[in-house]
C-alpha cells in the first residue's frame, strides 16, 4: 500500500467510525482500533496510539456544545478525574508490559460489552434525583439542571464505589486508547445515582482529560506515529462533527442495532485473532 492509499483509506474508515460513534454515543475509538488492526494489519500499539489522540479530539471538540445544554457538572467531573487520570497512567504503563495478543483479547472483551449495550439497551430512564449522602455533601457534588422552565436539583451517593469504577475506566482508557465513556456513565448513573443526562455530558468532559494523562507515556514509547495518527484524528473528528449535526434526524434504534452487530463481529475477530496470535 502506498502512503497516499493508506492515508485515504484510514481517513475514510475513521470518519465512518467517528460518525457512527457520535450517533450511537459509543465513541469512535471502539471501532477505529479493530478496523486498523483487522482490516489493515496495523500493529495494536500504533492503532491505540492513534485512537487515543482521536478520543481527545472528539471530547474537546464537543465540549462547547455540551456546556450549552447546561447539564455537565464540573465539580463531579474534576473530582472523579483524580481517579480516571491515575488509572490512565497505570493503564499506559501496562501497555508496554502486556503482550499484543493479550491486549487484543482484552479489547475484544470490552467490545463485547459495547455490543451488548448497543443491541439490548435503550437509553436508560433516569431514576428520580436523590439527596446527597454524607461524603457527597462534604464534597459538594450536588447540582441542578434545566427542567421544564425551572431547575431540577440532584445529589450523589456512593462516592467510593463511583471513584473505584472510575479508576478502572481510566485503566482501560490508558490500556486500550479508548474513551471508556460507557463505564464512566455507569459509575455516575448507576453507582452514584447521578441523573443520566448529567452523567453522559460530564463523562464527555472527563474523557479528554483522562486520555491526556496517558498521552505523554504513549508519545515517549512511540505509540503515536504521525503517519497513522494524522488520518485517524482528522477522520474521526470530521465524522463526529457531522454525526453530532444529524443526531436529531437519525433513526437511532436501527442504527444502534447495525452498529452493535458490527461491533460484535469485530469483538469475535479480535478475540479469535488474539488467541491465535495473529494480531
Amino acid at each position, binding site marked *: 500500500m502506498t502512503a497516499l492509499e493508506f492515508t485515504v483509506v484510514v481517513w475514510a474508515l475513521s470518519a465512518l467510525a467517528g460518525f457512527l460513534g457520535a450517533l450511537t454515543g459509543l465513541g469512535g475509538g471502539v471501532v477505529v482500533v479493530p478496523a486498523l488492526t483487522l482490516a489493515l494489519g496495523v500493529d495494536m500499539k500504533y492503532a491505540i496510539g492513534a485512537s487515543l489522540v482521536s478520543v481527545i479530539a472528539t471530547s474537546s471538540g464537543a465540549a462547547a456544545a455540551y456546556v450549552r445544554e447546561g447539564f455537565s457538572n464540573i465539580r463531579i467531573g474534576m473530582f472523579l478525574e*483524580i481517579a480516571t487520570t491515575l488509572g490512565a497512567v497505570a493503564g499506559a504503563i501496562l501497555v508496554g508490559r502486556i503482550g499484543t495478543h493479550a491486549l487484543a483479547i482484552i479489547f475484544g472483551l470490552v467490545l463485547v460489552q459495547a455490543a451488548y449495550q448497543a443491541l439490548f439497551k435503550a437509553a436508560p430512564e433516569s431514576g428520580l434525583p436523590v439527596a446527597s449522602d454524607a461524603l457527597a455533601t462534604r464534597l459538594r457534588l450536588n447540582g441542578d439542571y434545566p427542567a421544564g422552565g425551572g431547575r431540577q436539583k440532584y445529589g450523589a451517593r456512593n462516592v467510593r464505589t463511583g471513584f473505584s469504577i472510575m479508576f478502572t475506566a481510566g485503566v482501560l482508557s490508558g490500556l486500550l486508547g479508548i474513551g471508556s465513556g460507557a463505564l464512566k456513565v455507569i459509575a455516575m448513573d448507576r453507582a452514584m445515582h447521578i441523573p443520566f443526562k448529567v452523567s453522559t455530558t460530564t463523562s464527555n468532559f472527563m474523557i479528554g*482529560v483522562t486520555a491526556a494523562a496517558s498521552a505523554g507515556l504513549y508519545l515517549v514509547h512511540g505509540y503515536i506515529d*504521525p503517519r497513522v495518527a*494524522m488520518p485517524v*484524528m482528522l477522520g474521526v473528528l470530521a465524522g463526529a462533527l457531522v454525526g453530532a449535526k444529524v443526531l436529531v434526524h437519525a433513526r437511532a434504534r436501527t442504527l444502534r442495532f447495525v452498529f452493535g452487530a458490527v461491533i460484535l463481529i469485530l469483538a469475535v475477530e479480535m478475540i479469535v485473532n488474539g488467541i491465535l496470535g495473529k494480531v
Partner: protein
Amino acid sequence: MAMDDRRLETIIGRLLQVGVLLAAAVVTIGGAAYLVQHHADRVEYRHFVPGGPDLCTFPGIVRSAAHFESLGIIQFGLLILIATPVARVGLAIAGFALERDRLYTVVSLIVLLILLASLLHAT
C-alpha cells in the same frame, strides 16, 4: 461579572473548541506536506518499531517542526491537541480560585499534577 460554575464551563468549552480546530489545522498542513513528499512510498505498520527521538519527545518535536519537517508538524499539531484538556484543568484551577472555592482549587491542582507527571516523561 462574578465567576460562577456556568460561566467557567462556557469559557472552558470555547477554549477547547478553539484548541481542537487549531490542532486540526496544523495536523492538516503537516499531513498535506507529508503526502506531497511521500505519497508514493510503500508503507506498512504490521510490526511496532519505536520511533526516532525526533518524534517522541517535546524538544524533538518542536525542533523537527521548526525545520518544517512534515512529520514534526503533524506531531506538533497533536501536541496542541493533547494540551487542550491540560489547559482545561489549568483554567478550572483559576476559576475555582476566583470563586474562592478552596476544596476544588486543590482537587483541580491534584489532577493537573497527575497530568504533568505523565507528560514530563516526554520532555
